[in-house]
């Protein structure tokens, strides 16, 4: 079994050798991720795992992928998307230009969901969707807009439950077990690496979505991240978090009002 001190050593290596700082990630989950990687890759000892990580930049990619959770889906929590459609997006319609930031976008499923919502509201043409993640490999996947066909049944059900009225399959073409979403959706997306631990605010947004990312951070890093979002949201802009995340215990709380039972807050101060 991997001990706490081993975790500290790996985190130190990642920072010293590669500049990735995971020290303020929630430790219980991080320990699971490191143990899982160590077992999957069948290292005879923890020292050998560390040696490989330090000496092989190619293996770093695998470690970053292994340490970060990339689970995502389209129209995840359909009722959240319903609230976006009916309560949030209409209030953005009068703006000459709409800027949205998906922070921690993983392989892009939520960005494509958002683009579909905006297209159906006739707003996609004047929107820009910034999608960032610390992991360059997931961004590469997101950029391609290609997803496994087997998941489309579930996504289509989510889409309908979220209030979608079209034929979901009209948004993609299927080939060899994969689907590619139509080009017009991706045209308004900008993908870039951004690390919420170490990078700064880079624009002002009308809506920031960061769902199921903060759960992997400890409280001080959650606080830092929420402040980064606060600096990046214009007055009357929105912040959307995951269904079990909150800003209620953060210093920015006073400036925000929660909209309804979905985890969406509006900046009022």
């Amino acid at each position: 079994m991997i001990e706490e001190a081993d975790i500290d050593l790996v985190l130190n290596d990642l920072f010293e050798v590669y500049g990735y700082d995971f020290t303020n990630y929630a430790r219980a989950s991080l320990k699971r991720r490191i143990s899982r990687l160590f077992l999957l890759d069948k290292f005879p000892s923890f020292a050998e795992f560390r040696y490989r990580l330090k000496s092989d930049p190619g293996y770093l990619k695998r470690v970053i992928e292994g340490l970060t959770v990339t689970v995502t889906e389209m129209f995840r929590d359909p009722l959240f998307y319903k609230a976006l459609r009916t309560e949030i997006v209409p209030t953005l319609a009068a703006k000459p230009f709409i800027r949205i930031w998906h922070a921690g976008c993983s392989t892009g499923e939520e960005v494509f969901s958002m683009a579909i919502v905006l297209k159906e509201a006739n707003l996609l043409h004047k929107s820009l969707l910034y999608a960032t993640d610390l992991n360059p490999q997931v961004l590469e996947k997101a950029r391609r807009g290609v997803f496994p066909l087997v998941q489309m049944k579930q996504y289509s059900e989510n889409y309908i439950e979220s209030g979608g009225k079209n034929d979901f399959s009209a948004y993609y073409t299927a080939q060899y077990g994969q689907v590619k979403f139509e080009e017009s959706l991706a045209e308004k997306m900008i993908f870039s690496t951004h690390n919420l631990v170490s990078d700064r605010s880079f624009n002002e947004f009308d809506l920031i979505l960061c769902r199921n990312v903060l759960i992997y951070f400890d409280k001080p890093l959650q606080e830092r991240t929420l402040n980064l979002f606060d600096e990046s949201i214009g007055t009357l802009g929105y912040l959307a978090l995951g269904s079990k995340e909150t800003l209620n215990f953060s210093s920015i709380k006073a400036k925000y009002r929660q909209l309804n039972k979905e985890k969406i807050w509006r900046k009022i101060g």
Partner: protein
Amino acid sequence: MAENRLTTSFKAVVIGGSAGSIEVLLKLLPALASPLPVALMIVLHRKNSTDSSLADLLSSKTMIPLHEVEDKDPVLPGAIYLAPADYHLLIEKDEVFSLDDSEKVNYSRPSLDVTFESAADVYGSSLVGILLSGANADGTAGLNLIKARGGVLIAQKPATAQAAFMPQHAILHAPIDRVLDVDEMAVFINSLNRPN
């Protein structure tokens, strides 16, 4: 194991269950005395659903405060915590919950093994792991880790379980301390940290 070891200095009880375990909880929760002497965490295999009707149902059966966990909620004695659907439930060293939406384990999220293991890390010998009715093998590996850290293991008496496979599997593959029916479980939990 000394008998008084079973009744002193426990901080947390984790109950894991699958098919047939909600019925057990509906019977167990009303029998628990308030104030509860420990923090009680409940992890159930449940349909992926964001509605909170299960928490409402369970909390209607007890005067003890019962919440569905939100990320970084503190773990407090005297309260009951329900793992939310579609997240693994973990506990940090400083006794706050962390949620995790990574891959399913044993085809399950939440997985019983994941919470048992994490709770064992934090609570060591002051932890009780209880495994209820269910139809798969989730939980057994986690119970073994609780025992490795000095905790106490309880399995539901298979003859009283709607789905006997899960507690039976644990009885065969983990050093279970006690095999109890639901009434006996309530007596056991109520007696924790109380002088005989």
